[in-house]
């Protein structure tokens, strides 16, 4: 039996109606993103799915016999710069939980800016390399398919492109699939075929054994080759792009010297940070906020730090800095310059506001019946799923977070 967890009913229908899932016994359930934005329902999600949702929520998760076999993320956003990585934490969460993931993303989208002609904003090719790194580490498919568009037909003429008012994107004309991609596009046809192959492989090999075999299926190998080719063709001179343009690499000594002010007779920075010779610092000189930075931080982890499946398996520390780093080579230290005066208090305020949503301080007699299982979830996980997405992702990926007026770091 298949279960499909979905956020959009139309997108669920779009996938089911165009794959062999339409002939299978399926049960469909609404997916709830987090306890933060859906406190009435999130605790009803099965525990094994909560782990995938811990970082961020994909558009669809397909399960066979209560084991996730595929997640799908669909986006229509222009993928320039950091934006290409906005949803990356969802892909990482899927891979980290050994679940194949398909990502539907426009190759380009028409954007009209002030006092300028409309232009195609093209996908940041680095996203291909980052997904390749996920596949290297987890050996599970993490594949990108282009959202149908008129880009290739009208590369040099955005103004005259088909679907101009939809940003050049070709949406589905059938009102049963509102806001879904055009199903007649070759990329979508290929994707449907590969979903069928995942289902067939799962039924032939068994759910768990199939997961390690999918990446070597012919169509999957070829699609991975195509993704590598897209990366090289779209960036033949290997020019560094966002978010790596905001990254600096320093010997960890600099970080330890910076953190030295927190050490005293009774406390010393722990072994995790010390164990890595180098430190990668992602500099975000902006007001404290979420998108697109959480996904970009996750991408930097896979591009620059990770060699294994856990965050402990990094050959460089990953640090998020809310401001520009000014290096002091003489003292092997650095200063942090936040032009937006982004304070550590903004982080603390977000954490505090999620704590307010917790039921942990309530008495049993004060709980309504439907709150009891949610209370039980909080007693087990605390506010793990109740915190805002950016707090969850920053705290998961960063070994340290620097603000001009305070710092957070991991000891182990």
């Amino acid at each position: 039996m298949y279960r499909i967890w979905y956020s959009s009913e139309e997108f669920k229908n779009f996938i089911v109606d165009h794959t062999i899932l339409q002939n299978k016994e399926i049960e469909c359930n609404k997916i709830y993103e987090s306890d933060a934005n859906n406190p009435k329902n999130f605790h009803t999600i099965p525990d094994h799915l909560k782990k995938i949702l811990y970082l961020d929520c994909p558009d669809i998760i397909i399960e066979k016999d209560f084991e996730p076999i595929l997640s799908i993320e669909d986006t229509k956003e222009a993928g320039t710069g950091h934006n290409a990585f906005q949803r990356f934490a969802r892909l990482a969460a899927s891979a980290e939980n050994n679940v194949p993931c398909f990502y539907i993303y426009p190759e380009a989208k028409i954007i009209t800016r002030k006092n300028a002609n409309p232009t195609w904003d093209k996908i940041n090719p680095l996203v291909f390399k980052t997904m390749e790194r996920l596949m290297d580490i987890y050996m599970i498919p993490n594949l990108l398919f282009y959202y149908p568009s008129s880009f290739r037909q009208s590369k040099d003429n955005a103004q005259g492109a088909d679907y101009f008012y939809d940003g050049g994107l070709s949406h589905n004309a059938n009102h049963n699939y509102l806001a879904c991609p055009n199903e007649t596009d070759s990329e979508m046809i290929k994707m449907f075929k590969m979903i069928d192959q995942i289902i067939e492989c799962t039924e032939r090999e068994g759910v768990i054994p199939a997961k390690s075999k999918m990446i070597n299926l012919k169509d999957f190998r070829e699609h991975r080759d195509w993704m590598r080719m897209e990366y090289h063709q779209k960036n033949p001179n290997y020019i560094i792009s966002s978010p790596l343009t905001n990254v600096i690499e320093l010997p960890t000594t600099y970080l330890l010297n910076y953190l030295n002010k927190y050490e005293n007779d009774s406390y010393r920075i722990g072994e995790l940070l010390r164990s890595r010779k180098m430190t990668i610092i992602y500099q975000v000189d902006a007001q404290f906020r979420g998108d697109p930075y959480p996904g970009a931080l996750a991408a930097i982890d896979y591009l620059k730090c990770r060699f294994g499946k856990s965050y402990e398996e990094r050959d460089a520390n990953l640090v998020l800095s809310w401001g520009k780093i000014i290096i002091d080579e003489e003292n092997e230290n650095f200063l942090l310059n936040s032009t937006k005066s982004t304070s550590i208090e903004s982080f603390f305020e977000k954490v505090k506001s999620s704590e307010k949503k917790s039921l942990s301080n309530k008495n049993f007699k004060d709980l309504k019946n439907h709150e009891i299982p949610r209370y039980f979830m909080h007693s087990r996980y605390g506010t793990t799923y109740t915190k805002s997405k950016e707090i969850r992702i920053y705290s998961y990926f960063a070994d340290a977070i620097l603000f001009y007026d305070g710092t957070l770091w991991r000891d182990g």
Partner: protein
Amino acid sequence: MKYTEARVTKSIIKSLIDEEWKIIAYDFPQSGTGIVIHPNEVFRTKTKNKDSFIPDIICTRKNIALFFENKDRFYLNDFIKLENIRRNNIYSDDINKILGDCDFQIYYGIGIPKDEKIITKSLIHSKKVDFIVASDLLEISVVYDSSKQIVGKDVKSRYRLN
């Protein structure tokens, strides 16, 4: 089924298509679709996106164009927004581009759930808009139509757009 803005919009779109309206654009939470309509150049302040709006549905049939703002509840700001748009006509450049060369009569209206309380509150502010459509998620009813051009029937009667 619980009313949500997305469900109200989707059900209105389906009914409009059934009645042979051409859907030009639509937008609902998480759809990632929708057309941004900017104020005319002379009215723009600071950034281009300031004061822009994304209609939840734009549709046409013959020489009539409908612009919808939809909600899963009564929301006075949508009435005020549409009243200002009708009165000031500051979006005409973008709207003309979207609708093309045809000379459309444009009507602005609200989509709401078919709930007596919501309908009653909405009707109090009906003069701010051209029409109000209520959806029970299966079909839609026109509860207010100032022009009689859109549906040609009496206010508050329960029937589908025709």
